[in-house]
């Protein structure tokens, strides 16, 4: 009888903590690992494509804030987390390089970003699947904005807004 009571209280406590943590992670900020090298050298500057699949401990962890989802107001150069337009279960991290109304020049022609969309690109131009493949993405797919790197300790710091010059890698 006593053990049952104890287990029940324990379960209730766990459940409450879980619900509160989920709310905070949805509405305010959460910490997520970043996989892959498409954002080198901003995230994962030293891993190669082969080793990144081995262990999560090599991945950078970043702080993602959710306050930006109130007004969906972003600036060029923001790094954002968004649902992939080709698979809604996957989340990608890329940098916004153009907002609605801006013009993007791709080899051959110029493209105007439609209302409610944005153009995302990875910092590592050579190996990044981004808007250059699937076009501008609706801002409604954005799930948060990356503000800081929190792991590994030697690279803890703010993620700066940077506007890349056309064609020049970082």
């Amino acid at each position, binding site marked *: 009888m006593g053990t049952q009571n104890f287990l029940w209280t324990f379960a209730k406590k766990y459940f409450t903590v879980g619900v509160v943590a989920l*709310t905070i992670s949805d509405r305010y900020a959460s910490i997520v690992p970043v996989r892959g090298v498409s954002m080198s050298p901003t995230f994962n500057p030293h891993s190669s494509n082969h080793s990144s699949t081995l262990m999560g401990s090599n991945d950078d962890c970043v702080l993602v804030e959710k306050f930006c989802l109130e007004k969906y107001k972003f600036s060029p150069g923001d790094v954002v987390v968004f649902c992939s337009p080709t698979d809604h279960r996957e989340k990608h991290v890329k940098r916004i390089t153009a907002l609605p109304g801006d013009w993007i020049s791709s080899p051959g022609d110029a493209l105007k970003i439609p209302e*409610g969309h944005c153009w995302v690109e990875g910092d590592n131009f050579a190996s990044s699947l981004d808007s250059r493949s699937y076009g501008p993405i609706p801002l409604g797919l954005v799930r948060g904005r990356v503000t800081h790197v929190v792991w590994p300790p030697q690279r803890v710091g703010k993620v700066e807004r940077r506007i890349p010059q056309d064609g020049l890698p970082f």
Partner: protein
Amino acid sequence: MRNLPPFLMIVKEGLDKTLTVAKFLCALHVTNTYLCTSVMAQGPSMLPTFNLTGDLLLAERISARFGRVGPGDIVIIRSPENPRKIVAKRVKGVEGDSVTYVVEPKSSDRCETVVVPKGHVWIEGDNIYDSNDSRKFGAVPYGLIQGKVFWRIWPREGFGSVR
């Protein structure tokens, strides 16, 4: 407990009450985001299914999260033209489907066929004469879907499941 000055007792009670309210609000958020939410739909694009002046609907979040939204379902979706707006439309095709639609029903009967790309859905309002949907802005990514409408709460005459 008995030895605490009355001031601290009040502070403790205040904190307990605040914590209870906070826990309740968190539970509300989790239910709203992961189980079921209510939405007010207004406008002419879903006539005759939904009224012009506004219907209060219940939408469940579980089908969308598990990818179980299919053609014929009414979904609430974040507008690709304005991320702050949520609209209600019917899904006419999912990825891989071939959708045939009337481009401008008010002026001609010209039809076009399009294949829905991977990870996208094709949405149309039931009232194709007055609906801003995939016929204007193309197929939308599945990730914009916020939920599937399954019940109408208001107006009372329409109370019941929505097909």
